[in-house]
């Protein structure tokens, strides 16, 4: 049941433009889109995204992917495993150090604990700067200062995470529900009891969950900061790529994927046990 041409024309004369959009208006509507397309084309040309170059590169990529199969450890399995252990150690230590250091730092960033306003301001800006700089940059800086190796990586990740966690902690502290504290005070709880039974149960799940999340994230970061010399599997990966040992590169990438997968699964499990398992049982 379609409308006749007459009827459509009638409606167009009643409300101009409802059926047939005038060409000029249609062109105007397309204008922003066309501008974006042109701009994007310019960006692609400016960055050297030349189809011919990409085509040639894809050829080389295919050639090099061919050498990746089958992945092999080239007799260096022990070295690879040690490097992976270094990576995981960096991630774990950095998470623990940052989780601890962020507590006093986070308190300094919090207004509701009675910290002086100028102190809060300074602490917050410091945390902004520290976490605004990528872990990879901190790693490069620490490699320059304390030398090559995982120690530089630990310092870099710790510093970056401390900034991040301090912000999250201070938000968690500021979001405490005051009524729970009042309740314990009203039942004659000591200041210690107010902290232990009123504040901590509200903050701890957030802290635990964030620490676990940072452990996952640090495992990912720790695999790559080796590229600037900060130890771990990234160092090996960069070296193997420079040497064109593609089968070993593929093996290392698979190891990274497996490690990230396992750490995510473990952390997921711990999150359930530590947070869900803490809740008191419901008894009718």
């Amino acid at each position, binding site marked *: 049941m379609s409308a006749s041409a007459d009827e459509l024309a009638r409606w167009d004369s009643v409300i101009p433009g409802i059926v047939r959009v005038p060409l000029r208006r249609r062109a105007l509507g397309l204008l922003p889109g066309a501008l974006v397309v042109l701009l994007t084309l310019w*960006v692609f040309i400016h960055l050297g995204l030349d189809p011919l170059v990409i085509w040639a590169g894809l050829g080389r990529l295919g050639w090099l992917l061919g050498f990746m199969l089958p992945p092999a450890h080239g007799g260096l399995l022990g070295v690879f495993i040690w490097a992976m*252990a270094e990576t995981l150690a960096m991630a774990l230590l950095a998470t623990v150090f940052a989780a601890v250091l962020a507590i006093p730092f986070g308190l300094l960033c919090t207004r509701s604990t009675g910290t002086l306003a100028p102190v809060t301001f300074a602490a917050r800006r410091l945390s902004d700067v520290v976490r605004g700089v990528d872990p990879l940059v901190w790693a490069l800086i620490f490699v320059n200062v304390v030398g090559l190796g995982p120690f530089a990586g*630990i310092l870099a990740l710790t510093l970056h995470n401390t900034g991040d966690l301090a912000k999250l902690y201070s938000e968690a502290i500021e979001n405490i529900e005051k009524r729970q504290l009042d309740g314990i005070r009203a039942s004659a709880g000591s200041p210690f009891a107010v902290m232990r039974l009123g504040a901590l149960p509200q903050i701890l799940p957030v802290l635990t969950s964030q620490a676990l999340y940072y452990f996952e994230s640090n495992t990912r970061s720790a695999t790559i900061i080796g590229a600037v010399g900060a130890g771990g599997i990234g160092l090996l990966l960069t070296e193997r790529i420079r040497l*064109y040992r593609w089968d070993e590169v593929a093996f290392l990438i698979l190891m*990274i994927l497996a490690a990230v997968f396992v750490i995510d699964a473990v952390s997921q499990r711990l999150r359930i046990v530590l947070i869900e398992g803490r809740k008191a049982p419901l008894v009718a």
Partner: protein
Amino acid sequence: MSDAAARLEVALRTHRAQLRQGNLLIGGAFLLAFAAALPVGGFSLARLIEGWPEILSYLGAILPEIRHDHVVEDVGKWYWGFWRYLRLMVDTVLMAYAGTLIGLVGALLLVFPASNLLGRSRVLRFACRRMLEFSRSVPELVFALIFVVAFGVGPLAGVLAIALHSAGALGKLFAEASDNLDTRPLDGITATGAGWFGVIRIGVLPQVLPNWASYTLFRFEINIRSAAVLGFVGAGGIGQELYTSIRSFAYTDVSAVLLVIVAAVTMVDLASQALRRRFLDEDVIG
């Protein structure tokens, strides 16, 4: 004591015992891992104490000396390379833009066949999912290291690395958003005899677009941060400049470049957050 109270008492006691057991187990495993990590990671307090003065003096050295009576000259000397940094930072943002855009296209191509609800072929669904998983699990920097070999030094390698990683990351978020959609409109459109593309165009896209747009902008913010460091491995952008100034101990240049990066990232974040809020607000109203 009433029956209910006694049951509560017993339940609480077993719960506490279980908790204690779990605490001991997890705590023990954690301490063991921590103790093992210290030597493996080459960490010791002695080394930290030994390195501490150097760390402080380095951080002191990268800050510029600005005398209060020569502010203009000193800032000028600190930022002698300002226009160069600005050009490189703009290039970095453009790399993130191009990478996000290409990644978005990749994600859109893979997400429909990968979706539980919309994927027609099981083999295709499996293949698309594994591809998305792979490309988001491998860090950009690893892709960049390999692409620099294949495509040569320069922003092209960086853009492609960002694109590949973003396709995976966006694909996952898109798939989650599209798995939660309301299926009734889809049934309605299918009932009118529409094909697969019709269902997606009229039924799916209007539901998921605000979320997807917001995710894409968020990815763009993340990608600017990544693009700023991909230069470390030769993949273009301001990272190359930062790498050179850190490695050649050009102290004050380090802080100058870092400040440019932090300022640019902050500005783009603020703009993008404002836009994202608008998308999601429209979602609520529409």
